[in-house]
């Protein structure tokens, strides 16, 4: 029902938006293939394509990448342990203060990450002053901050799935003789699993990409990958950093494909990690 003029305008407009959206990532991957001699020369399109910079990635970047993966994975796991019972309890019980309680669980999304960063840093200083325990620059300290920013994503998607839950499934399970725990493990959890996977993916990715929270909780020799990149960029950088960035872009793509295989893209979009914000 659309006219040709309209189709052409939409096509050009859309094309422009997509180029704007995707070009930085394409350019990073392209420029990482730079084959010239000078390390300072970052060029797109690359001169003589080669993979030489991929073998020159310094070990600090791999260590940072490993730390980021570890923190993101563990933070997502802990966030799931908080978000699953919270969502079940919230959707299934009836009381008046629901809105207030939901706001508390969603609060970390409303607070700008930089504010949370400085808040956690000052909290850690206070804990240090009172107990002598320094959390800033340690794995538990980093994890706590990341659990804080990751939980709302899982909470949001699981609540969305639970609101569409068909209660007759549980009634059928009870009437067939399954107890509470058996029903929870065999019926309820498997049904909300797509929500857990897609929320978990968003939570993992948000934690994995975070700068503003992590930048306050790092220490020399204890830096997450995005923060390592951030500092590299404030100084001079060479194409090896583009090589490791390209590996991360491919990793993000791979994560999406895995989730597509497990729960399907539709579920991922419908359960609305986007709308969790």
């Amino acid at each position, binding site marked *: *029902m*659309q006219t040709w003029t309209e189709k052409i305008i*939409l096509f050009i407009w859309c094309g*422009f*938006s997509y180029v*704007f*959206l*995707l070009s*930085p*990532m*394409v*350019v*990073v991957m392209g420029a990482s293939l730079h084959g010239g001699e000078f390390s300072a020369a*970052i060029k797109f399109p690359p001169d003589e394509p080669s993979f030489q910079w991929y073998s020159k990635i310094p070990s600090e970047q791999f260590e940072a990448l490993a730390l980021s993966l570890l923190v993101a994975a563990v933070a997502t796991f802990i966030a799931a342990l*908080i*978000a699953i*019972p*919270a969502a*079940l*309890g919230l959707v299934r*019980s*009836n*009381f008046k203060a629901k809105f207030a309680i939901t706001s*508390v669980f969603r609060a970390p999304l*409303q*607070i*700008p990450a*930089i*504010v949370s960063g*400085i*808040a*956690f840093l*000052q*909290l850690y200083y206070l804990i240090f002053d009172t107990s002598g325990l320094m959390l800033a620059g340690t794995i538990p300290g980093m994890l706590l901050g990341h*659990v*804080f920013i990751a939980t709302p994503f899982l909470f949001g998607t699981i609540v969305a799935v639970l609101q569409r839950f068909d209660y007759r499934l549980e009634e059928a399970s009870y009437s067939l003789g399954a107890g*509470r725990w058996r029903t929870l493990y065999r019926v309820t959890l498997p049904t909300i699993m797509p929500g857990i996977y897609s929320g978990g993916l968003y939570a993992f*990715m948000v934690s*994995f*990409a975070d*700068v*503003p929270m992590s930048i*306050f909780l790092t220490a020399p020799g204890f830096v997450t*990958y*995005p923060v390592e*990149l*951030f500092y590299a*960029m404030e100084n001079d950088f060479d194409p090896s950093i583009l090589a490791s*960035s390209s590996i*991360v872009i491919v990793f*993000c*793509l791979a994560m*999406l494909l895995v989730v597509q295989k497990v729960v399907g*893209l539709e579920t*991922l*979009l419908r359960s*609305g990690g*986007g*709308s969790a*914000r």
Partner: protein
Amino acid sequence: MENRWFAYLIPPFIVTLLLVAGSQFVFIQNSFYQDLGLGRTGTDLTLVNYIKFFTDSFYLKTFWITIKVSAIAALLTLFLGFPIAYVVARMKSRLAMFLLAGIVVSTFVTIVIKVFGLIIIFSADGVINKTLLNLGLIERAYSIIGTQEGVVIGLMHFTIGFSVLLLYSVVVTVPPSLEYAAQIHGASRLRVYQRVIIPLCAPGFVVGGLMIFNMCMGAFTSAALLGGGRVLTLPVLVQRTVMMEVKYSTAASIAFVLLVSVILINLFSLIAIRRLRSARLVVA
């Protein structure tokens, strides 16, 4: 039955409340102590940091620049995000899912990597500068680092993926049958946009626009890297005050001003949603 589910809620609620209240309380309290520099603070509660913020032209200018670049970035993001959302929502083939997948992947990649790409694209011998120089539109290479335009582009990259997903969920609530009905009654396509699509999406645009504006206000990474120390926004100022000047109380007061502005915008958009919903303008 009900009590059992309520019991599930209590432990995670206590943990989250402790994290939220604990962290926020400490820094808000710190913002009311006088800053003595080098991480030391006074012991008496005072409003001195806030008085300084609202009387010093440097802080007020930073506040104004933050609002300005965020507003421009939010509007441009909506402008670029809408066609993708509309086309994908109306597409019937499986291609739509692939197009959305592209958006989702772009939201996963850390903004630092995207800023890398932007810097290469806009560098002195990058694609944009070469083209503009060859066309004779500019006389010498133009750099986006340290300019407000650069910060706006960075903020747009930070929010555009999210805005497409958001606008997509708005457009899906407008059934295509409404468009057909208008056309059967003789409306041209332009008129369908004017009288059907835009009015029905408008509430979503307003609320979505406010959310994107909020994200921009709080955006640190892209603003810090593309501002290059010359264009400061509130989040960048918070980080610099902590890391370079080691003034925790001043930083806390700036952060609190930022937090309150963001919460006010949120409340405003919440009220907007309620109003629009009661006027039956929003389906979802």
